[in-house]
């Protein structure tokens, strides 16, 4: 992608297009990776609600798997996940293992 020159920038670095975070992929920042365990998922969608990016996908109103291109491994989804009978539906594992 050709980078813009200083004359082409919006004053004050204001972003004018809504929802353009889709162009900014944060997956490479990750040290820990969330793993979804469907068998423990109660479909509360807390993970979708709490995810600060757009790493949790929902299809036909149901939880779908992670989109790791937008997951920086913050772990909020795993923390908020109520799980089923004390068993988490999202667990964090170290990358590379």
């Amino acid at each position, binding site marked *: 992608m050709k*980078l*813009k*020159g*200083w*004359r082409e*920038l*919006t*004053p*004050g*670095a*204001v*972003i*004018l297009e*809504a929802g353009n975070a889709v162009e900014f992929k944060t997956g490479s920042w990750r040290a820990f990776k969330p793993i979804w365990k469907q068998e423990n998922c109660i479909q509360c969608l807390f993970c979708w609600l709490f995810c600060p990016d757009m790493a949790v996908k929902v299809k036909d109103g149901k939880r779908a798997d992670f989109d790791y291109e937008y997951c920086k491994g913050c772990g909020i989804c795993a923390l908020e996940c109520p799980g089923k009978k004390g068993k988490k539906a999202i667990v964090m594992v170290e990358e590379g293992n």
Partner: protein
Amino acid sequence: MSKVVAATGNEAVANALRQVDPDVCAAYPITPQTELMQRFASFVSDGQVKTETILVESEHSAMSACVGAAAAGGRVVTATSSQGLALMWEILFIASGLRLPIVMPVVNRALSAPINIHGDHSDAMGARDSGWIQLWSENAQEAYDNTIQAFRIAEHMDTRLPVMICLDGFIISHSIERIEYLDDDEVKNFVGEYRQLHPLLNIEHPVSYGPLILTDYYMEYRKAHDEVMTKVPGIVLDVAKDFEKISGRKYSLFDAYRLEDAEVALVILNSAAGTSKDVVDEFRNRGVKAGLLKPRLYRPFPYKEIGEALKHLKAVCVLDRADAFGGSYGPVFIDIAASLYSYKEKPILINKIYGLGGRDYFPEHAALVLNELIEIVKTGEVKTFKEYIGVRQ
């Protein structure tokens, strides 16, 4: 129709803010600015303005609230002095970087330590390179006039930059002077309706403020800011022309007083320029070709125009009411020296530091300096390039 009143500098600036009737004001009291915002708060309480005032717990919060309100789409004001401006420092750069046209009177006061409440320029000089526009004011009339013009300069579509209006603490803020107020309607027409370019509160077109800009773009944004600063002098002159039509008062980038055929001159900011002009007159009466230059637009500094105005002189003394503890010269001296740097023929420059912490500046000080300049012209010798005056040895 204008109205002639007797008022303090703070009162005059507060009245200018009343006439503009901004949308939002977030401020924190600090001497010697307190009276200014106390008077403006009275206008709010009495229903004379529709401004929403935000009570904050510090100047850091005051400027932060101003940034938020300005990004949201409001016409925003605040005011401060000294430590208050120092506490705002971090957010000053955010206001200018986001190109938010906040208007802020700065009632100049010395910085701690040692703690001191009186007038000097250390506070605003510390913020001179924060990306804000700075207008400096000799007296209460100019502070009032600059405040009104500041809105048009800040909100100009080609720039959108925050503006500080500097006036000397106590000497101007608390002294009663004769001031001509414009009519409320004239001021309202002059400043006009304000429309934010990209307001956060426009939910039809959502925008984001304050993104992370790293190595790939940061330098381009800084270059763009540098470039936009170069447009400011032209805008300041255009606004001054329009202001003259309603007020009859003429303003420029700087005040060149008896400078055209002068051989020696003083460069001095704000209230002390008034004292110095009287002394220049006395010297003129004695046949000495003396003059004075008083910067009004100090940031961006009109280097080219000031260089042109001073280059023909034989000797110039720059008087600084703040020192820059860089082991070199006062801040105004450094700028004046830079403005003359490119000329082959230029005046000999000396620097005097005066009036720190509100120390009185008397006509005798100006006379002493002018006599020294005459001696320098005669002998071609400079004893000291930088010296404190009015200080006990």
